[in-house]
């Protein structure tokens, strides 16, 4: 067994840190003692370090099941950037020979990312059965729970697959999980005795604010005012790409801030550039949809504003969690206009297939074209021998759950009592009143003084233009190719 001392040594040697962050050592100690572990750590708490360090310390293959291709690619890139070359993602974007090559060279990898669908393929499963697996990681484990907002039916296969892989040591990670979801995760993965490592989801340095408006113009005016006066950088979230684009233009015009839109409709080149500009402090504000955030590890975000109401508290909490990772005072503001809930409800409804859609897709004899998520969802059930009636009931229940989750979200913005306690209650993590931060939420302090919180931008004259870089193409080339002969101490 690996000692605590060895864990610290690896932490120092591989990652250059001398201290673990809260929860990391507890999870690692449980794992090295051979205990299956469910780690509930907030976004940004350093979940990935747990399995990275475990892989480095034990020199064994770590298999990570992850729900999204883009997330997997991002995780591989992040590992590569840190100098770990033995990482790969096995995805449907690879050609057959490429996949095959990876499968035949499994021992050359330390970290392998797969989707649950990919993992359930015979060729993949049998290749993995033939190597010694150090650790199975179920990332975003809440996807297994029909009670959670991101339920993915493929995750239901994981309990069985885990047995087929000879019951390897397993780490389940998630950022936000209610008691109900935690129990569900352990039950569905058939690991009822797994050790729980749960950190408080609360983020005491984020002030929680909700503001209501009669008209959209009022809302826009307030947004402009906030973006102008608040300390930057910040993120404004929208439910629609169109609105994100439009508002990015509006803010660029009215605020002198460097603003860009970010959503799934952009091409990868643009997404990369916007992301990197933001990381390198060349942008003040991002107007984003929920597509923004993956792989963004920026610790000085001062505000997260929501222009639309998210569909549930899990999503809201995940998104505002991008603020204040450096521990400094930050703010989350939800701008609400009566009627907004219809947008949210519509979007939420749109993700769950309706009765007639289920019936229609059940009649189909072949899998649907890629991209039609609902069709693929129903195909999944059909393929796994569900009856149409069962599926109808399943989605009926799901619609009800989505409705309940949304009502809880609306409850957050309507509650006249402490919003932080409301959230804590939702996630079954109630704390004592004396544990609440002095500056807590707009229910307690409706007229919060942003200056007193230190959230007002001190240099009003930030009028750095978009093109603050070199003014000539010759200068750009000189910089790109280091023609001055500088070497960075990197």
């Amino acid at each position, binding site marked *: 067994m690996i000692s605590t001392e060895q864990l610290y040594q690896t932490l120092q040697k591989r990652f250059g840190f001398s201290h673990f962050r809260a929860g990391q050592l507890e999870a690692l100690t449980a794992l090295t003692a051979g205990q299956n572990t469910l780690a509930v750590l907030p976004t940004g708490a350093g979940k990935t370090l747990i399995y990275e360090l475990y892989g480095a310390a034990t020199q064994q293959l770590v298999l990570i099941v992850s729900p999204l291709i883009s997330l997997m690619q991002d995780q591989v890139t992040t590992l590569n*950037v840190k100098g770990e070359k033995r990482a790969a993602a096995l995805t449907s974007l690879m050609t057959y020979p490429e996949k095959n090559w990876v499968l035949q060279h499994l021992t050359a990898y330390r970290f392998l990312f797969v989707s649950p669908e990919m993992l359930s393929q015979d060729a993949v499963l049998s290749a993995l059965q033939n190597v010694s697996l150090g650790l199975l990681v179920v990332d975003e484990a809440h996807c297994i729970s029909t009670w959670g907002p991101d339920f993915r039916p493929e995750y239901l296969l994981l309990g069985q697959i885990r047995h087929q892989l000879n019951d390897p040591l397993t780490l389940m990670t998630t950022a936000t999980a209610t008691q109900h979801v935690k129990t569900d995760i352990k039950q569905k993965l058939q690991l009822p005795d797994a050790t729980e490592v749960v950190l408080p989801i609360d983020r005491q340095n984020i002030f929680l604010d909700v503001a209501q408006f009669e008209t959209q113009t009022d809302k826009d005016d307030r947004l402009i005012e906030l973006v102008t006066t608040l300390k930057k950088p910040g993120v404004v979230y929208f439910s629609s790409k169109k609105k994100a684009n439009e508002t990015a233009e509006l803010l660029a015009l009215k605020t002198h801030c460097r603003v860009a839109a970010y959503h799934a409709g952009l091409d990868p080149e643009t997404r*990369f*550039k916007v992301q990197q500009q933001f990381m*390198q402090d060349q942008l003040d504000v991002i107007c984003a949809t929920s597509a923004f955030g993956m792989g963004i590890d920026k610790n000085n975000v001062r505000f997260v504003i929501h222009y639309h109401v998210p569909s549930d508290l899990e999503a809201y909490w995940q998104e505002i969690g991008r603020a204040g990772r450096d521990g400094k005072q930050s703010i989350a503001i939800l701008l609400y206009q009566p009627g907004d809930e219809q947008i949210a409800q519509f979007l939420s409804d749109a993700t769950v297939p309706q009765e007639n859609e289920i019936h229609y897709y059940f009649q189909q004899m072949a899998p649907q074209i890629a991209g039609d998520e609902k069709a693929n969802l129903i195909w999944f059930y059909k393929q796994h021998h569900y009856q149409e009636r069962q599926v109808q009931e399943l989605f009926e229940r799901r619609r009800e759950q989505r409705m309940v989750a949304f009502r809880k979200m609306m409850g957050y913005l309507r509650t006249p009592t402490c919003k932080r306690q409301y959230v804590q209650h939702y996630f079954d993590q109630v704390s004592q009143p004396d544990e609440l931060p002095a500056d807590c939420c707009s229910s307690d302090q409706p007229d919060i003084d942003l200056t007193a919180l230190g959230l007002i931008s001190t240099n009003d004259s930030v009028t750095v233009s978009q*093109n603050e*870089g070199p003014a000539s*193409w010759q200068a*750009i080339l000189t910089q790109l190719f280091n023609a001055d002969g500088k070497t960075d101490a990197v």
Partner: protein
Amino acid sequence: MDTAQLITFLSPTAPRRLRVIENILVGKRTVSTLYWGMRYHQLSWLGYEKRLTRNVMDQTALELKNKGLVTVEETNAQLTELGAIEQQRLLNKHYQPKYLNLRLIVDVEALWQRLLLATQVVSEQAYQNKHYYPLQVSWQVKQFVKRWFHQFYSDDLRKAFQDFWQTFLSQLPNDQALLMSRLLVGHQRPGETLVQVAHDFELTESEVRVMITDLICQLAKVIAHTETASLRSLLAGLSRSLISTSAQQTLNSFMAGKSLEVISHQRQLKLSTVREHLLEAAIMLPPEQFDFQRILPAQLVTQMLARLAKTPLDQWQFTQVADLSVEFWQFRLLEILRSKQTDDKY
């Protein structure tokens, strides 16, 4: 697609089919689309905007109509007098692409991805930095550039790339050179987005997109002729055939002297498919690469032309020759031949 772009695809002298313009931009290779695309001198735009939707297309046309710049009948649009003036104004004011034809024979999108990533890799190498976030590109491009760097990293890539970009940008007008250089990604330079440069140069997004695509086509041309192996190899495997692989096979058999029936039998294709392949080849390839005479005997051409000579090409009707022993696809082939011989832009 915006109104300024659609205007340049229309004509004041004859109505043009909006569906053809749309299908060309989306990249549909049906014979009818290709034929009319050729007639509209729009083939170099084939597949330029693969995600264009019918809705956007119709909205744009409607906008032009509401401004009194076009008349629309069914789905055919023609510039009004006002529209013709606006078209002229835009042609003078907006950047006009010159090299888009290259898109048909080189996968310029992939070339740009490779070049952008390679430039970033070389830039970081110039600063001896190994820990950076690489540009997100397709798996294929990423693998290609990895292998490419493995092959060339010991060359003086820094000098090769600096010289290359220096030479390329210095032959461009200053604003174009600046615009392109600002897109580049490298050490502590995330690069600017198309929207950002459009904003700074006071251009529309679609204008910048055309300009960049045309500049990338020029890059492809320069790279094809460069002596520097590290750069030239970035083009490896990116050449495209003017016609589909299947059409090429049909054409090869045809040019080898096989009859259409034999080709149909040997390739297990319908006769109509074989004919479509040949029409596609006749449209897309230079006329000397297609044996028109085998399908259009001189006597038949003379007979048909006697009926058609006084009618402008785009008003030819098959009914004018239908009583001769001629099939529609032969008639279409004569149209293609005529178009190539006279190139009468209308």
